[in-house]
């Protein structure tokens, strides 16, 4: 096996252009599990941990190599909340937001936040830079629009993030758990809500009908909130698997969305 360890972005992009079939290694928390269980044996690895540009976090531009440990300590409320639910302290010290996007698990913990705020994903190659909206980038179960010669270089957040934002996830314990359902709700200064849900479809999704319904209600009555939760439960597309059932996930998606929305209203 050949391993390359670039320390700068140019060097990394060159290595990838020369070997687009190479396996990319960021924090290793997903890739090494596959290797340890003999599901994968890469011949050529490009390790990204040393690429300094990827570790930069400048306001709304979040480098792909920023670890969940740093995000957990950062200033963005729901982003810090979700980072705190990623794995364990050991996993957060290694795992990165770029890796979380590259793996593109339906339960990716960062995805509901990115969907709720309509974040963009920046990709770079020797050919140039392109920026895709979250739903253009995440296209299926463990599938993204990244081309083989592209690196995920950053997450670009919108200019203004709603101050009121909440994230939560449901799982069998507080630590070391893959989400059964995860949700992020944001409410902007005009009172407009956005609701994104993870682990209830092939990719993270927005509950658009529920958003529209609650945003058209001037009075957030109990009946309106109950209808909001019902619409979320209806809109999600969960499956039954070893982690949970479709029925439970629908129920939990509605409960979680309503709870987070009410938390937003109280702040």
């Amino acid at each position: 096996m050949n391993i390359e360890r670039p320390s700068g972005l140019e060097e990394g992009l060159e290595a990838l252009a020369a070997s687009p079939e190479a396996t990319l290694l960021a924090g290793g928390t997903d890739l090494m599990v596959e290797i340890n269980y003999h599901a994968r044996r890469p011949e050529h690895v490009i390790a990204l941990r040393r690429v300094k540009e990827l570790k930069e976090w400048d306001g709304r531009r979040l480098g792909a190599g920023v670890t969940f440990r740093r995000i957990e300590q950062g200033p963005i409320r729901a982003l810090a909340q979700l980072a705190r639910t990623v794995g364990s302290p050991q996993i957060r010290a290694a795992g990165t937001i770029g890796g979380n996007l590259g793996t593109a698990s339906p339960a990716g913990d960062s995805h509901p936040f990115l969907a709720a705020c309509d974040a963009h994903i920046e990709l770079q190659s020797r050919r140039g830079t392109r920026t895709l909206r979250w739903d253009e980038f995440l296209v299926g179960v463990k599938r993204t629009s990244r081309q083989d010669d592209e690196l995920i270089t950053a997450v670009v957040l919108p200019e203004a993030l709603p101050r009121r934002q909440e994230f939560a996830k449901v799982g069998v314990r507080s630590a070391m758990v893959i989400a059964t359902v995860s949700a992020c709700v944001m409410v902007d200064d005009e009172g407009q809500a956005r609701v994104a849900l993870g682990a209830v479809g092939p990719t993270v999704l927005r509950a658009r009908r529920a958003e529209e319904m609650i945003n058209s209600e001037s009075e957030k009555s109990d009946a309106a909130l109950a209808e909001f939760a019902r619409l979320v439960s209806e809109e999600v597309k969960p499956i039954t698997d070893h982690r949970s059932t479709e029925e439970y996930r629908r129920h939990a998606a509605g409960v979680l969305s309503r709870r987070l929305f009410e938390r937003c209203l109280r702040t």
Partner: protein
Amino acid sequence: MKITLVVNREEREAAVHGPESLLFVLRERLGLLGAKDACLQGECGSCTVLLDGEAVCSCLVMAGDAAGSEVLTVEGLGTEDELHPVQAAFVEHGAVQCGFCTPGFLISTAHLLGHNPTPTTDEIREALAGNICRCTGYGAVLRAVESLAGERRS
């Protein structure tokens, strides 16, 4: 491929085959059996080491990517004659049952106290959430760490 890294303050050279983990190299090539080979997916924390000062699961570190790094395993924490304060506290409070998870708990605790000398009970629980004890000896572990936090507070 051969890699050089600093393990327990000593420069070591090790052969590495393919994408194998740092844990495998520590145990099978360098004879350091403190970090345990258990879940191999980052769930249990029994392979926790400090990699350049960060507590990580060594089963999730590709050995080739650790070349040039500094690694601290439980073998480098203290000696039989001079236990590290965390080891002494674990002995004092009986925070060891079968002992399998203990090296990981010791490293995670030493890392926690290095960053936060006086953690609250909640902070201790959260910092040790990535270490699993299947004997369920958490009460004694918690008392051991709390005693260290208490000493540092007074």
